[in-house]
């Protein structure tokens, strides 16, 4: 058994309109000290076997992230 977390973020050079909208809302709430927001995705995978690094790379790079516009990181939380 293992839990694997995959974080996916838009690459720094890709515009993030969602993050900009959140930033705008934060400014309206008075949080003018926050100067940038980038929004990403977090996937929590439960496995019933020991994590296989190559298989996880494939999962992340073929489905969870589009590597044309996104970067991802994989970490095993418990095994």
């Amino acid at each position, binding site marked *: 058994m293992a839990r694997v977390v995959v974080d996916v973020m*838009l690459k720094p050079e*890709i*515009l993030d*309109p*969602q993050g900009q909208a959140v930033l705008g809302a934060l400014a309206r709430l008075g949080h003018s000290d926050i100067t940038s927001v980038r929004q990403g995705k977090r996937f929590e995978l439960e496995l019933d076997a020991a994590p296989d690094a190559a298989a996880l790379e494939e999962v992340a790079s073929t*489905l969870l992230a*589009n590597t*044309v*516009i996104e970067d991802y990181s994989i970490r095993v939380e418990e095994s």
Partner: protein
Amino acid sequence: MSARIGVVTFPGSLDDQDAARAVRIAGAEAVPLWHGDADLKGVDAVVLPGGFSYGDYLRCGAIARFAPVMQNVIDAARGGLPVLGICNGFQILCESHLLPGALIRNDVRKFVCRDQWLRVENANTVWTSDYTEGQEILIPLKNGEGGFVADDRTLDELEGQGRVVFRYLRDNPNGSYRDIAGITNERGNVVGLMPHPEHAVEQLTGPSLDGLGFFASVITQLVDA
């Protein structure tokens, strides 16, 4: 015998019926294809229609890419089968890596729905041969995630090889790099664009008849083949 053009329906497709109608108006037989069915039914060409396949979950087109029918569409497209991706269909083609780049959320942070002028930049693809290079056409555009992005090397390659098929005219609606509205693969058989030619095939419902040329083009190519 008339050309047989398949139109794929995914869960969440919206414009499959309009695409099929456009195919019929242009004079071909529209063949319904089902996302869960790996059979292409021997069609001569395929249209991936607009909509929100699989609810746009994960990313637009990301799950549709792995639908059973898509494995055959991808193989057939690599073998030269004409494939047209409209809006969500374009997103699916990019996710499938049949076309380079990706579509991201509009820079204006709004869903944009309007009639859009385009310039035809490449009239040599199987889907655009009825147009002339430089021709300006007016067809509807409606999307929330239509910003075409790719790295500079890819953009330069697309431009250098004449693979930018359509460009937005006058006002870029969504932040697409270099005003790109549609592109093609190296062979010119796979074309994807965000605007909707299938909504511009009848005077009653469209802003023009400028969309008919897509379907007329592929029919001409299939008859000549």
